[in-house]
């Protein structure tokens, strides 16, 4: 019979310091947050940046504007429900919109890899033009750089945007208060699972499409219906769980959500089962959450449902004084568990 070892407690081995950028630094999880805290914030620190919202709101003569920037490196470039160009427009529009701003102008920067077909670029640019029209924004300036073959991956796009912030409106993670209801505009995970299925060549039954969409009208409708609105977030990489964890940390509150209230389509659930992923962590490109005081939650919900992009909106949870900085989920069995922020990328489980 084998004898099992009985370990003694002693000093731990040192774990190597993180000295290199790994893919997890771009995951939207804890590694990304640490990069911001350790590298960017110390260098750039100022009051607008410190809010760490999806956009910065700054004063200008006569009012305030919102600024946001984002880079797009999606592969494949074209996928069911969208393409990199559409994402580059909607993503920045949405980052401005969830700050309560009315998006107005975008800049776009292209980093193109030598050898890219001009027809592909034309297709992307055409899609951006249509997306800008749909979102009611103008692309007013841009830049193009070409890198040697192998130094990029076809097309990278950066877009930055400016929006006008209505007078008297102050939204942000730090405004969130215990008692707020959390509203979600629809089902989770469609963008992330569509991209993953395309990459892995998984042919899934059902209509699996990215949810890429401009959320400016939906956000404006919520602002109008619920003047006491505290915050909104769009749910991109890192999914619902990262957005909720960021807000719980910023606002020093606890968050409780109900698994049964969170819509996930069968196609996404099925794919998540196959890949071993949790829909709460999967990326979206047309989903958002709003933090609304209880007495205005019904009005906000009705306003969301009146918009096609919020037809399936739900109240999914509540902000609480209990367990500050922590997000918990009531399971379908009535038990409670933590919804943690991802350490880095969500990696598929082995079995």
């Amino acid at each position, binding site marked *: 019979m*084998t004898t099992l070892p009985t370990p003694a407690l002693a000093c731990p081995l040192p774990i190597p310091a993180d000295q290199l950028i790994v893919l997890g630094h771009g995951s939207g999880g804890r590694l990304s947050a640490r990069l911001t805290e350790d590298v960017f914030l110390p260098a750039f620190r100022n009051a607008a940046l410190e809010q760490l919202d999806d956009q910065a709101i700054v004063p200008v003569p006569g009012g305030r504007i919102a600024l946001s920037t984002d880079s797009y490196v999606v592969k494949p470039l074209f996928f069911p429900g969208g393409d990199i160009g559409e994402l580059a427009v909607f993503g920045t529009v949405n980052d401005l919109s969830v700050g309560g701003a009315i998006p107005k102008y975008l800049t776009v920067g292209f980093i193109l890899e030598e050898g890219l077909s001009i027809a592909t670029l034309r297709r992307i640019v055409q899609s951006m033009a249509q997306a800008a029209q749909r979102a009611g924004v103008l692309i007013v300036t841009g830049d193009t750089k070409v890198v040697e073959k192998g130094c990029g991956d076809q097309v990278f796009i950066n877009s930055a945007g400016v929006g006008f912030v209505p007078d008297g409106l102050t939204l942000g993670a730090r405004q969130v208060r215990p008692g707020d209801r959390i509203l979600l505009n629809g089902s989770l995970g469609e963008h992330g699972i569509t991209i993953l299925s395309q990459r892995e060549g998984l042919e899934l039954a059902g209509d699996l499409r990215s949810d890429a969409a401009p959320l400016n009208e939906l956000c404006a409708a919520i602002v109008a219906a619920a003047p006491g609105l505290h915050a909104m977030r769009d749910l991109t990489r890192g999914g619902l769980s990262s957005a909720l964890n960021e807000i719980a940390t910023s606002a020093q509150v606890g968050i409780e959500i109900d698994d049964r209230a969170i819509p996930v389509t069968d196609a996404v659930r099925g794919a998540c089962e196959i890949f071993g992923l949790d829909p709460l962590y999967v990326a979206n490109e047309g989903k958002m959450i709003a933090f609304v005081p209880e007495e205005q939650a019904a009005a906000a919900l009705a306003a969301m449902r009146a918009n096609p992009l919020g037809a399936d909106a739900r109240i999914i949870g509540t902000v609480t004084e209990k367990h500050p900085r922590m997000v918990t989920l009531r399971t379908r069995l009535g038990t409670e568990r933590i919804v943690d922020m991802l350490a880095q990328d969500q990696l598929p489980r082995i079995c």
Partner: protein
Amino acid sequence: MKHLDEYRDEALARALVDRLTAIAHHPWVLMEVCGGQTHTLVRYGIDGLLPAGMEMIHGPGCPVCVTPLEVIDKAIVLAKTPGVILASYGDMLRVPGSKSDLLHAKAEGADVRMVYSPLDALKLARENPTREVVFFGIGFETTAPPNAAAVWQAARQGIGNFSLLASHVLVPPALRALLGAPGNRVQGLIAPGHVCAIVGLEEYQAIAREFHIPIVVGGFEPVDLLEAIVMLAEQLEQGRAEVENQYTRSVRVTGNPLAQKMLTDVLEVCDMKWRGLGEIPKSGLKLRADYAAFDAEIKFALAHNPVDEPAECISALILQGHAKPAQCPAFGTRCTPERPLGAPMVSTEGACSAYYQYRRHDIEAAQAELATAGGRA
């Protein structure tokens, strides 16, 4: 969703909890063997629904967690070898070896690819004839047959630039080691459903007889686990020690003969070191001599450099059920999923990682309570 919703049904789960409360009159200590089962148990808070006194011990069945450090070191050496593409499952890329992990090796320029199947790695080998493709394959009797099949296919199709770095472990020898260890507390086993779907029930019947312990082959959904727990409690209350099958929708008594044939044709039993448990005789699988050309250890003449576990990790105690993750002083502080000190914090299926992800607030509350109580005394 069909085949899923019925196994996550709240009413069914409640009925099973009620039944368990009605029949269980003793503080039984049960072990779920498989990491997938641990994950479900903790994710759905099922152990919190058990009658007072009943306890679940989280077994050694997380293949990522029990892979020894030196094997991961070998994978990193291979990944950094010029001309090599190293492919593995996503989970494996983050597992730290003694100094680094495959994700960092990738950041340093190694060609590391995440795949979903060894057959994807075989495809990579076909598509990159000038490169050497190594699949880093680990796991129990569940993942061994597809890895064996990839080698079998490579041999048949003459794909000479494919090889396997294998670290395969077998469940029954580990169970025997655990059940036979001094101070064993486990009184009933939930056997790993997917392993049994491959190998069948015979070996588990032998273990039930040998240790006079009831075994229920269980599935991986909440209702599966609760039903398996009820079945174990029934056996224990009635003094029976039999093998029963809860996971009938996947497991046949004889298992999967095709997969078994692939296992025995390509692989053979060997002694194996388990991370957290140590060396267990005849508890692993390696490629047969006929397939030596596809054995990465031989092909690349990899040096064997044994490494000790970080001494602070109490994974052996956790995997044997002598300690819960929260009882480890390093839990959640010096040992987190970002910087794991040992096996059970490594994969999402590891007991410590599952507690960290889903339970931290209970643990923090308990630790705070302890501290306050200590302060008052």
